[in-house]
């Protein structure tokens, strides 16, 4: 490429420069002097105005100039402010994001004192969330307990060995006062329905004499306790322990219903039995609950290390029984009352597939009897 000052462009440049020289632009010096005077006068007046008072126009102009000069630096300020607001909001967020993760809230001491302080990751709604511990979604049952409950050490109960051979293994109904509230300042959290207490006697011990029982004086500290098993009630009225023993053998288990929360020392006082909370989410009447526990729950918890049982009723009057074990596992079974036999039968949830002429797929999900063989579409 030829340079503009090379010989290639020399004729062109020469003509251009000659054309410039040919120009005869006349400048009127008088006009030039007058213009200078006018400009300086005008500019001097402006400068004088600037020095005498506040020129809002120049102030705005200067402000715009400063903003334009530092516009990128100034843009950082709202961005940082927004980040700080988001960070502070996130730090103050009351809900634990990882709500599905188990939240251990029981100290080892509490764990030792209360074997029923199970922590679950169940889905609880906001009303069931412990308001005293925001962000923690724990098992709902412990939310109504005062903190002093966990600080309470189990009482050492003196066993009356004389009663072991003379008294039956069930707990005598004692007409005592209403359930004693341990703490005077009960929390204002909504009180959930109390679980039914199921006393389970292992099968191998049913034919034997009760090993140990609680002293009556200690049992008086129990909340309101009633014996609901009519057979046991009748046997309890008998003075002869031998007859009581026979009555006990005829029953699979004992049930004691209470309106209060399970007390730990009860289980320690009667080691041959297991206290089992049963949580109902159904419209069962008291009689229906009793029958259901006898027919269904007793068979499910026999010889198993069960923590508690949750019973709920679903569609088609199918009752789902969830048995939670102390090792963390869970067993779910469905039961439905027979149409004519009025007995509880185990059912299963199956899904059948049907194909019509156009090979259209139509699922059908329903409950069938548990022994129904529905191959190959058994769910």
């Amino acid at each position, binding site marked *: 490429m030829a*340079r503009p000052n090379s010989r290639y462009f020399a004729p*062109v*440049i020469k003509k*251009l420069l*000659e054309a410039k*020289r040919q120009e*005869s632009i006349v*400048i009127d010096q008088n006009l030039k002097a007058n213009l200078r005077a006018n400009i300086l006068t005008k*500019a001097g007046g402006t400068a004088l105005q600037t020095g005498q008072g506040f020129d809002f126009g120049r102030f705005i102009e200067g402000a715009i100039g400063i903003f334009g000069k530092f516009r990128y630096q100034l843009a950082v300020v709202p961005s940082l402010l927004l980040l700080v607001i988001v960070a502070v909001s996130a730090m103050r967020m009351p809900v634990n994001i990882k709500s599905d993760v188990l939240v251990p809230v029981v100290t080892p001491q509490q764990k030792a004192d209360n074997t029923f302080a199970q922590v679950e990751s169940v889905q609880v709604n906001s009303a069931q969330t412990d308001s005293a511990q925001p962000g923690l979604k724990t098992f709902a049952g412990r939310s109504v307990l005062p903190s002093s409950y966990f600080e309470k050490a189990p009482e050492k109960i003196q066993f009356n060995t004389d009663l072991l051979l003379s008294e039956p293994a069930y707990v005598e109904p004692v007409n005592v006062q209403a359930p004693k509230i341990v703490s005077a300042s009960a929390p204002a959290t909504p009180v959930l329905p109390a679980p039914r207490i199921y006393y389970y006697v292992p099968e191998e011990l049913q034919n034997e004499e009760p090993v140990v029982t609680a002293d009556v004086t200690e049992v008086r500290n129990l909340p309101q306790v009633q014996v609901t098993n009519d057979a046991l009630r009748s046997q309890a009225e008998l003075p002869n322990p031998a007859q009581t023993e026979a009555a006990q053998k005829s029953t699979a288990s004992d049930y004691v219903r209470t309106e209060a929360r399970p007390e730990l020392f009860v289980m320690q006082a009667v080691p041959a039995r297991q206290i089992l909370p049963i949580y109902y989410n159904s419209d069962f009447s008291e009689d229906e609950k009793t029958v259901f526990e006898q027919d269904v729950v007793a068979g499910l918890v026999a010889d198993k290390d069960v923590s508690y049982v949750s019973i709920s009723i679903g569609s088609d009057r199918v009752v789902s029984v969830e048995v939670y074990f102390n090792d963390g596992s869970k067993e779910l079974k469905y039961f439905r009352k027979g149409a004519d036999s009025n007995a509880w039968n185990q059912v299963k949830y199956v899904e059948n597939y049907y194909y019509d002429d156009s090979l259209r797929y139509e699922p059908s999900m329903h409950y069938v009897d548990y022994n129904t063989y529905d191959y190959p579409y058994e769910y």
Partner: protein
Amino acid sequence: MLEQEQKMVEEAKKNPQAFAALYDKYFDQIYRYVYRRCSDKATVYDLVSQTFYDALTHIKNYEWRGYSFSSWLYKIAHNNVLKWYRDHGRMQMTDLEEGQEIPDLHVNISKGAVTKEDKDEIQAVLTKLEPEEREIIRLKFFEEASNIEIAEIMGLSANHIGVKVFRALKKVKQLLTQ
């Protein structure tokens, strides 16, 4: 030379009356520059006076960048001329014949070096150029500005201006040989 000019600028920033020295030094250049682009004398005086007035009122914002103060004045004049043409909706005209009636006392004219046919030829060629190319030719060979100064006036890079000067010269050469 530039150091002295820088001192003048710094003095004008402090005292508006010191701007008179810069005015006297660059008035003729700016006047001719505007005159080549706008041949109406009244308009030329208006644009020139507006150019110097703008320079005086905004001289505090001027930053010395190592080249002549005239580049800044050219840039102001360039913008004022463009604004005037935009406001009046006129095409830029080039009339080298204007002003010949009054002899220029400051330009050494070597009479007879260029014939009237040559002037008409250059005039015709410049009118055939694109406005940007014509502006670059004027600044480069009539105002004798460097590529850096032209770049400052037109808002382009110096390398870009070099390429454009080459292309404009090539185009002028082609037009002259036709």
